[in-house]
């Protein structure tokens, strides 16, 4: 056997694709964890259908998982993949557009049956008809090889078929020079109760690795060295897990018990699942009968002195609208996490979008301002949620934390924070009945006192009817209403004094400023960086706080000749920037249920700089 060549790469993007029952998400997650442990920077994008088990072999049943990893800073899951692992013809057909010219296809030939070819709409087998000549195609009998590896085990053909993803994983580990041990450990802990599955998966994983090692099919192995990340301890984390942990960390800092009232909804349910695990932290999760009960129960818990949260996605947020208004007038702390998905209505439940910004900002009856914070990356969901909790408690207000399906399911290495270094969350219950007025206000923050039931002498009534200033009694007085509407608005405005100023990445003035918010951060940062390396006069501003804006936002905008605002909606932030700062910003909108590709942002930047827009 000839010694195989090892080639070094800075970064690579792999896409695993198969039927939604083929275990592609699991394969991708395992590859991700192993890659993270090796010290690569990475970013992932799971892309799966709304149907749990769509009919096998169909185009709409294809489930994909993309990982972009490298020895350099990785901001996105990759515009295109370098390697496509296709378990069947449908997976090939759906994902071929994402493969770079000259890219590698690893195909499971056993999946390319006549039936599957027909289901995918192929008249001829693409593995044989020359249509893939511009790619490097490695056709491997994955199913057959899996069955061979397991032939002396007395297990069903169904079980054999279900372990074939481990063969693919083993092969990919060999090609990219990753150790098997983390996955071996995982299989051992996962299948303790099912020894035959444990044994089968281990064997198939090793068989995949050995196949790469011994056959002549793969002549090259690749090495991707560790990235230069800030020193410290890392773990891989998804956005949804980061939200759950952010809430727990905030509760601990505030010395409050955490309460989550939630109703299952894609793609936010994982937050409910995650928090349900932590009963030993006194976390109380309440799977309510509907979205409205989710937030209403959280309001009740907040009245009782819990750090209360509700988690949802767009349609659920719409249902919570009235209760958010109640939280606004009650002036109780509440964290509302909205993991956005494609809309309107049921829309694209498993796809990503940024189209709830206006709903988050304005989607309530009456004058009902709510602070809005959006996370930029999966791991930033931790910080954004923690910050939302800090503001909620300090200002006695509901706070909206925006994530999206891409961040929620996506993952990246996370520098584990030093808990002690996290900001303080100054929760305080009043206890002194002397001079107690439920709607008196802190001079600096304008927040009202948090007086929880059980406190002797502080019995009081709050509610959704307009409150009289100071006493909180029901008041229909016109002047009082005007005063209260303004007070509630000013309270939120004053948060601008308590958040960091906006920071421009790149020159602080010039030809073009690209503004991002939320999960498009990575693609836009990558695009701007590349353009700057090419010498373009372009800078980047990422907005984490959508309400209130950082105080210096206006003056930054006025220092650039052009402003570009790419969004995965039809232009929601841009509408606000234009009306608030009267700047002629240029929008760039793509609403496909997918994250931006940085190349398309780059192209737009070039067009604007050339004066084409």
């Amino acid at each position: 056997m000839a010694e195989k060549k090892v080639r070094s790469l800075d970064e690579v993007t792999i896409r695993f694709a198969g039927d939604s029952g083929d275990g592609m998400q699991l394969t991708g997650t395992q590859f991700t964890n192993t890659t993270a442990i090796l010290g690569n920077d990475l970013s992932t994008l799971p892309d799966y259908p709304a149907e749990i088990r769509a009919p096998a072999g169909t185009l709409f049943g294809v489930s994909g998982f993309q990982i972009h990893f490298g020895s350099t800073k990785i901001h996105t899951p990759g515009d295109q993949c370098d390697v496509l692992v296709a378990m069947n013809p449908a997976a090939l057909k759906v994902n071929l557009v994402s493969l770079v010219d000259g890219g590698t296809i690893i195909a499971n030939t056993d999946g390319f049956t006549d039936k599957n070819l027909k289901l995918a709409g192929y008249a001829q087998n693409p593995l044989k008809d020359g249509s893939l000549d511009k790619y490097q195609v490695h056709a491997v009998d994955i199913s057959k090889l899996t069955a061979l590896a397991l032939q002396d085990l007395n297990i069903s053909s169904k079980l054999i078929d279900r372990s074939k993803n481990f063969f693919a994983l083993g092969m990919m580990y060999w090609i990219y020079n990753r150790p098997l041990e983390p996955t071996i450990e995982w299989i051992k802990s996962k299948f303790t109760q099912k020894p035959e599955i444990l044994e089968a998966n281990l064997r198939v994983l090793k068989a995949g690795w050995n196949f790469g090692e011994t056959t002549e099919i793969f002549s090259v192995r690749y090495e991707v060295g560790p990235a230069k990340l800030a020193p410290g301890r890392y773990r891989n984390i998804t956005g949804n897990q980061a939200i759950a942990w952010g809430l727990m960390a905030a509760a601990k800092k505030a010395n409050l018990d955490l309460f989550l009232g939630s109703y299952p909804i894609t793609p936010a349910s994982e937050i409910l699942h995650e928090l349900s695990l932590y009963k030993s932290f006194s976390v109380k999760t309440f799977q309510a009968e509907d979205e409205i009960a989710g937030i209403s129960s959280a309001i009740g818990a907040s009245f009782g002195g819990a750090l209360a949260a509700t988690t949802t996605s767009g349609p659920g947020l719409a249902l919570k609208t009235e209760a958010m208004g109640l939280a606004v007038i009650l002036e109780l702390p509440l964290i509302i996490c909205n993991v956005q998905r494609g809309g309107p209505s049921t829309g694209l439940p498993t796809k990503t979008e940024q189209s709830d910004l206006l709903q988050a900002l304005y989607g309530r009856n009456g004058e009902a301002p709510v602070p809005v914070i959006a996370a930029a990356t999966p791991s930033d969901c931790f910080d954004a949620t923690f910050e939302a909790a800090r503001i909620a408690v300090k200002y006695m207000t509901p706070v909206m934390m925006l994530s999206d399906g891409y961040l929620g399911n996506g993952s990246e290495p996370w520098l584990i924070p030093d808990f002690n270094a996290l900001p303080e969350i100054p929760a305080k219950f009043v206890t002194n009945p002397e001079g107690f007025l439920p709607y008196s206000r802190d001079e600096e923050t304008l927040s009202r006192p948090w007086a929880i039931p059980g406190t002797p002498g502080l019995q009081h009534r709050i509610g959704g009817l307009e409150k009289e200033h100071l006493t909180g009694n029901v008041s229909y007085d016109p002047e009082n209403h005007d005063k209260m509407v303004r007070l509630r608005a000013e309270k939120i405005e004053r948060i601008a004094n308590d958040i960091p100023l906006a920071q421009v990445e790149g020159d602080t003035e010039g030809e073009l400023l690209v503004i991002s918010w939320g999960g498009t951060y990575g693609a836009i940062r990558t695009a701007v960086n590349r353009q700057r390396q090419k010498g373009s006069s372009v800078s980047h501003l990422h907005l984490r706080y959508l309400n209130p804006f950082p105080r210096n936002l206006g003056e930054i905008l006025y220092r650039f000749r052009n402003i570009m605002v790419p969004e995965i909606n039809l232009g929601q932030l841009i509408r606000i920037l234009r009306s608030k700062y009267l700047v002629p910003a240029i929008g760039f909108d793509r609403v496909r249920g997918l994250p931006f590709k940085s190349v398309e942002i780059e192209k737009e930047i070039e067009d604007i700089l050339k004066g084409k827009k």
Partner: protein
Amino acid sequence: MSTRVDEIVRSSQMIGIPKYIAKDFQSDQDVRWCPGCGDYSILAQTQRVMPDLAIPRHKMVFISGIGCSSRFPYYMNTYGLHGIHGRATAIASGLKIARPDLSVWVVTGDGDGISIGGNHFIHLMRRNLDINVLLFNNQIYGLTKGQYSPTSEMGKVTKSTPYGSIDYPFNPVSLALGSSATFVARSLDRDPKHLQGIIKRAAEHKGTSFVEIYQNCNVFNDGAFFQFTEKETKDDSVVFIEHGKPLIFGKEKDKGIRLHGFSPEVVSLKDGKYSVSDLLVHDEKDTTLSFILADMTYKSHLPRPVGIFLAIDRPVYEDEVEKQIAFAKEKRGEGDIVRLLNSGDTWIVQ
């Protein structure tokens, strides 16, 4: 480990329970229901019962939704939350789960409780949190000035049903029973003694207590329940059901309810054919019987049953929450956030 809330709970328990009188439960707010409204009596009876419950008023919370009845919390010198339409039960559920130490009450109406709030209502009943629900049923929408409600009788002419209502009404008691409630009762605004007794029993019941209170809206539906509340007709139209006692009614106590198969029927105790020993004896622990009695409700040939239909024990939701927390802590130890953040597959970058 103790949180800020634990400190409040602890300090509130240090204080003994004061000797209250009804007046101690009156807030400083003017009561603003229409003169003659049945709500006044319900408020008064509730305030009268409170001192007997031996619960400090700072540990009590009244939660409501929207409607005339939902102004109730403003008039109680306890903690209170006037919420949004139909959601009082959901708000109360969150509060009770977060704070099992509190005595939590929901005040609602036929519109708030079982029309817009119907979903939360049924789920509260089945979960069996220790919350007391007082539903003021006046068979009309009062606050919005006179539309029919989900308990209005068929054919009812209101502003929104000029040709008569074609909706079949809910029977709130059957709805609560059908939702697996553990305490279900009915009482009358114009029978103060009975109402006090029922509210007290509801408060003492561990689990969700549901009390339907027939309440006269003298402006938009005056006299809806007079047949059951006024001297002339009451005795022959209402049968008061009491645990362990035969169902006897009538001015002369000369009529009873007997079961014919599963169907209740009225029998005379005068003509010598039936005696008290033939009558149905109420058992508030009998779930099946509770359904039969509740089903008498809209049948004109039967008296209207009033009293406690069912009072059974079943595990209480918030207790089970606390048990799981205790179990998890015993098994895994008190949660450590720093350890959690550093858990899983981690690696160090130098």
